[in-house]
């Protein structure tokens, strides 16, 4: 797409994105599980910087999560096995949501369960609340023994869970896919059939780390989910494949730490991106990514970030 680069010189770049039913002022979202309930980074990064934030995954009942150690650093990455520690639906509605609803950004609530009924219950209850921009269905948590990932690796189960959520809410439904599958396109098609409005990917890759001096697994949970720059090439490939397989908008994530990474995901087919582990390294990442996206668009003659989505697909 050739453009007059001079024409876009000092012009405003339109950062807004529209994913079926979910309008964001910019395409940069805080990834669930890395941004608490939105206010923890206030001193470092104003929450309104974000196009949206996905809050920590909620289950029907409160959970204390997995035993420590829950973290193991690996080359350019980190394994985590938090195990869905969260206050549970009731406490979330009472103590967390009222504060979230006032945040000057789109609030996405991530939901997790151990049965189809769990997901339906969460969707039914949260679907009635004000201040929620979308539900993200976590069918891909690798860190709990039952549920989570098992729904995310079998296309039939994935479709069933998403359909159950779809029936209970008019909010936009985001299906968060697991990379721990043979063919990510099958899962993408399954959640599309189930009625998902948006697909987000990738959740973490299952991995483990062993303490060689102690001769035992580092993580209390033995296995954990790998995130960080180490997984980025896998995530970009999967966004690329899902873009080809379905017509749904995509939120791409996996190891983004700078604007170039965000652009890469968008060129592969993402409409928006999420930043997770990158926040741990540098809490200023979202503002740096946004500034970089703007200047990239200006340099390449785009007036809107929406023009980037899938551009590399035509050049392969």
């Amino acid at each position: 797409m050739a453009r007059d680069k001079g024409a876009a010189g000092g012009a405003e770049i339109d950062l807004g994105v529209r994913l079926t039913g979910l309008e964001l002022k910019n395409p940069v979202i805080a990834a669930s599980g890395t941004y608490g309930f939105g206010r923890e980074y206030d001193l470092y990064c104003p929450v309104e910087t974000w196009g949206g934030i996905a809050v920590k995954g909620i289950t029907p009942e409160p959970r204390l999560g997995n035993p420590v150690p829950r973290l193991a650093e690996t080359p350019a990455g980190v394994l985590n096995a938090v195990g869905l520690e969260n206050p549970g639906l009731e406490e979330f509605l009472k103590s967390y949501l009222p504060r979230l609803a006032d945040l000057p950004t789109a609030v996405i609530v991530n939901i997790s369960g151990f049965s189809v009924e769990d997901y339906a219950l969460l969707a039914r209850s949260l679907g009635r609340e004000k201040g929620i921009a979308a539900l993200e269905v976590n069918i891909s948590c690798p860190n709990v023994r039952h549920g989570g990932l098992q729904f995310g690796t079998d296309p039939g189960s994935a479709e069933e869970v998403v359909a159950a959520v779809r029936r209970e809410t008019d909010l936009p439904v985001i299906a968060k896919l697991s990379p721990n599958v043979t063919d990510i396109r099958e899962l993408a098609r399954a959640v599309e059939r189930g009625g998902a409005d948006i697909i987000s990917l990738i959740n973490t890759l299952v991995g483990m780390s062993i303490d060689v001096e102690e001769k035992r697994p580092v993580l209390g949970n033995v296995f954990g989910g790998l995130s960080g720059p180490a997984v980025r090439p896998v995530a970009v490939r999967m966004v690329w494949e899902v873009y080809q397989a379905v017509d749904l908008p995509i939120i791409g994530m996996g190891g983004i730490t700078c604007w170039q990474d965000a652009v890469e995901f968008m060129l592969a087919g993402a409409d928006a991106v999420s930043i997770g582990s990158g926040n741990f390294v540098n809490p200023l990442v979202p503002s740096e990514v946004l500034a970089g996206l703007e200047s990239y668009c200006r340099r390449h003659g785009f007036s809107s970030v929406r023009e980037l989505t899938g551009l590399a697909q035509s050049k392969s």
Partner: protein
Amino acid sequence: MPLSYEEIISHESQGNPAEGLRRLVLRGSVAATARPGQFLHVRVSDRLEPLLRRPLSIASIDRTRGEVTLLYRVRGRGTETLARKRSGERLDVLGPLGNGFSIPEKGELWLVAGGIGIFPLYALARAGLAAGLKVHLFWGGESRNFLQSAGLAEWQDLGIPLHLSTMDGSLGDKGTVMLPLGKAEDPRSAANRLSGQPLPALSVAVCGPRGMMQAVAELGSARGWRVEVSLEERMACGVGACLGCSVTVRDERGRLTNRKVCQDGPVFPGKEVVWNGAR
């Protein structure tokens, strides 16, 4: 406090190089608000390897000069990378983070340290002395060589009673810090039993290996001391967002609940910690 780029004023090996201890002095905005027991979340590399920041406790605070001192032991990829930073460079830090120790209004303040758990207690000792408290140090380490490398001379300069132990018996009692602690607290308790007079309130701040902190917390519960322990756990965010550093505690109503070492701690009342919980 916002993200800060502190200037490295000095960064050198401390004591016997074989101990791998280093002293890092930073000048910037941190010193103005830092309290004893808080920590800095330090980005050790400008690149993505190692990825995560490292939490390092603040060993001393000099508000006049705008400086804080961090002491650490080189023990892995993070601290090895940090050890290569030179004077004059800037260090990207989050903090000061965490709650820090409380400083009692009156009475005695006993500091109990195991190994490099001594580091965050120095700032507390100085704050306690400045507040007019009677401060004692109980400190156990591997050997005389270790205690000297880890700053024994500076503790001696404070002029407070030092109750030391070493595992090899080369200085103080032979064994853990529980030995000198027991020797000091026995007559104290005995005097109380005999006289029936209330003793000055005793606050105890503990930092060291988990088993040692548990032992002190349990002794303190039996004696009615106010014990605070500084817990350590692997951290990613440092601000309470990722839940990587959760610890299980028993709240006032006896219910088990989770707290975050980075945000709710690292200092916790000894009686709240569930020592034999998931670990």
